[in-house]
């Protein structure tokens, strides 16, 4: 049997006294688009950061293609084909657009690969090409989100983790972001794991959905089964438990 691309088993993370994740388990198959939906403070960002090595797991395992990676440094996990687009973009505002992208490409052993990727991405993101030598801090919010995604792709990932790509963006821009993600997926065949607060848009794009609340998975299902949104709503707000 083929091992899942990403598997998380019974993951616990806490910040001092406060538990952010309390036994999260999930799996993502190669080539899938999986979305984690949950309210503010559910632990979504912590989950992605823990997978990428940015926060230490207290307990549990993270497996990439069957290999345990929990405890590795973020730069080591990046070398295993995982790239994170964090919440709030976190672009390097004093670096130019090109420098932001080049930074993502440094982990290729062959500089030619990075150069080719850079040129390729400039074609996918014409707005970035036009501002290539601008300090990234001067881009608009939508452009910054595009840059953060492009920068993540520069590392040549097989799995991209995207934390709230629609945060703070106008609906029209969010459509563009998702169109770009779909295009990248079609061209490069990557696996996507996306966090969102709201499920309405994601139902169209995701293969499967997890609902995370209070640091635990409340619901898992295929997007088409959950299409009416009722089950998600119950898990999201926790009506399920209290009425049962």
């Amino acid at each position, binding site marked *: 049997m083929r091992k899942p691309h990403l598997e998380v088993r019974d993951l616990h993370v806490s910040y001092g006294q406060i538990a952010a994740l309390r036994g999260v388990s999930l799996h993502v198959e190669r080539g899938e688009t999986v979305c984690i939906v949950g309210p503010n403070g559910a632990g979504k960002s912590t989950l992605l950061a823990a997978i990428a090595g*940015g926060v230490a797991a207290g307990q549990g395992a993270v497996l990439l293609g069957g290999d345990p990676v929990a405890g590795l*440094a973020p730069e080591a996990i990046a070398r295993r084909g995982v790239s994170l687009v964090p919440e709030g973009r976190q672009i390097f*505002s*004093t670096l130019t657009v090109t420098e932001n992208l080049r930074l993502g490409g*440094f*982990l290729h052993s062959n500089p030619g690969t990075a150069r080719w990727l850079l040129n390729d991405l400039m074609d996918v993101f014409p707005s970035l090409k036009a501002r290539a030598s601008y300090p990234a801090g001067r881009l608009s919010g939508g452009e910054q989100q595009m840059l953060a995604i492009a920068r993540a792709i520069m590392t040549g990932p097989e799995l991209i983790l995207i934390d709230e790509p629609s945060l703070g963006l106008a609906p029209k821009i969010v459509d563009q972001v998702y169109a770009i993600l779909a295009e990248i997926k079609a061209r490069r065949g990557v696996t996507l794991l996306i966090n969102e607060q709201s499920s309405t848009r994601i139902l169209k794009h995701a293969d499967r959905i997890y609902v995370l609340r209070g640091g635990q998975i409340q619901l898992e299902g295929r997007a088409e089964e959950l299409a009416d949104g009722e089950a998600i709503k119950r898990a999201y707000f926790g009506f399920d438990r209290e009425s049962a």
Partner: protein
Amino acid sequence: MTQFLQTCLDAASLGSIFALSALGIGLLFGILRLANVAHGEFISTAAYSLIVPFTSVAAASELFIGKWHWAAVIPTVCAIVVVLALATERFVFRPLRSASAPVLMMASFTVSYILQNTVLMVYGSQARGVNLWYGLTQQIQWQGLRIPLIQIVTIAVTAVLMVSLSLFLKYSRFGIEVRAAAEDFRMARYLGVKANRVIGIAFAISGVLAAAVALLYLPQSGTINYAWGSPLALYGFVAVVVGGMGSLPGAVLGGFSIGIAITMLQVYLPPELKPFRDAFAFGLVIVILVVRPNGLFPVKHVMKRV
């Protein structure tokens, strides 16, 4: 007028020294939030490496590395300090990577204490006269000005170092990694930037800058003692704060401002207040931290860092 030009030259040369010192401190602060008190001991070590260890005091100490041709002295001294800086990183600051900024400062205080006492143990507590590059202390007569050659050399070397450092930071792969790490270390690591390498490079550059400060300032001061580097680093600190902590251009500007301020205070302060020159400088640090915490020359992105 001649007097004023002379003062300006003094200010520029002293400012160069402080700017180099501030750059070494500011670089580490930007990346690690490390206020490295031990930078002064990096400078002292560079100076002491020039003379013979384990000798009793002599008015003019026998030169060791300092006797060599300058083309050999410079790389050797730089290498010694770089090795020292990398060793402190490896054995003290790397195990403390996740510690808070004040704990890091405490640790650097400890490193400074260990190094200072090592110098005491090896070279003794008395001041040593060091005749490095005697030729540089001579003066050139020009338009009624008497210009010590070393001042010209200091300003020129500083200019060259700064231009090459900024070219390195601007265009090289390591430069981009270092600048990214200074802005957001964690994000840089998510993109595969190796923390140990970036920090190692920053410590190495910091060590080279400390060696430069020592080699440029030594011919002017002529004598060294075990705490020789401390004031140079302390003024570097002042410069870093004045320039807005974490900003490298700010550190350079801060260094020159402090150099100018100190020289002017020395010349124009009434004689009875002159001894309190340093007290004014450090009082200024407190005032700036309280009133303008982002320094006198704020750069936008560093606002959140302090």
